[in-house]
């Protein structure tokens, strides 16, 4: 009377979790805070920016269809908020140092002797003291270079996306990234030449 049972239909993909303000806080506040802290080099400023970004996001939650769309947008909002915060602070303190540094970043001249680094075996995870040395070195980069270094080499964003985010040409991003990497190399060199991180 009845044929063999039909195979069950393909299961529907699991629904994305509901994007509530609490979800946004739990999932994204740490990420926002750490991007802002690396860009601004200051815990208190990063906290202000995180608060500002969370407020922006929570107020616009209705306009997002899901977590994936929100994640993309958050990067951009965080970067914009950090840049705006820095600009406001610079204006308040009447400092124009970041503009003056836009195209100047001294690195060790080519032609001199270069020591080989003693880097040891390739470990998948950085030792805590290595991570601390790198974080300090990033903090020593002038802001226009630090922004690009953080977005490219820490966050792993493509150069084209960074250019769009920061309102720069692609060649400008590539040039600043290269100079930031050379400066980072110079800052890290004393820690890695000869005996590894010290």
């Amino acid at each position, binding site marked *: 009377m009845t044929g063999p049972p039909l195979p069950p239909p393909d299961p529907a993909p699991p629904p994305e979790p*509901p*994007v*509530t*303000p*609490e*979800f946004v*806080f739990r999932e994204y*506040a*740490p*990420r926002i*805070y*750490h991007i802002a802290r690396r860009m601004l080099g200051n*815990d208190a400023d990063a*906290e202000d920016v*995180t*608060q500002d970004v*969370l*407020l922006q996001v*929570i*107020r616009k*939650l209705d306009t997002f269809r899901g977590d994936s769309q929100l994640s993309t947008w958050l990067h951009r909002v965080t970067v914009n908020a950090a840049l705006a915060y820095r600009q406001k602070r610079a204006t308040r303190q009447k400092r124009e140092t970041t503009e003056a540094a836009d195209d100047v970043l001294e690195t060790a*001249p*080519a*032609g*001199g*002797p*270069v*020591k*080989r*680094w003693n*880097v040891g075996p390739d470990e*998948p*995870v*950085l030792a805590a003291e*290595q*991570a601390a040395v*790198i*974080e300090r070195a*990033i903090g020593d980069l002038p802001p226009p270079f630090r922004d690009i*270094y953080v977005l490219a*080499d*820490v*966050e*792993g964003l493509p150069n084209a996306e960074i250019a769009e985010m920061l309102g720069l040409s692609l060649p400008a991003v*590539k040039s600043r*990234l*290269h100079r930031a*990497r*050379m400066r*980072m*190399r110079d800052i*890290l*060199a004393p820690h*890695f030449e000869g005996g590894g991180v010290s």
Partner: protein
Amino acid sequence: MTCDEFRQLLGDHLGGELVVEVRESFETHRVECENCEFYLESYTHTVKITRKLPKCGPLPSAVEARLREVLKDHLHGSG
């Protein structure tokens, strides 16, 4: 190729963007110049270890507490 020209190409080298003719000159210089070979190694290692930094970690507990206090109306008001 000079050492300075070699250094200017490191970013493109790392991104695999050197055109064939330039790549040949780059590799020739690299083989002939120990300083540039060491510089390339250290430049590449700098990028490699930076990429291993954790992108994120937990919020410091004091920061989380202050943010939750400031945002409490928004966190509990809807959803």
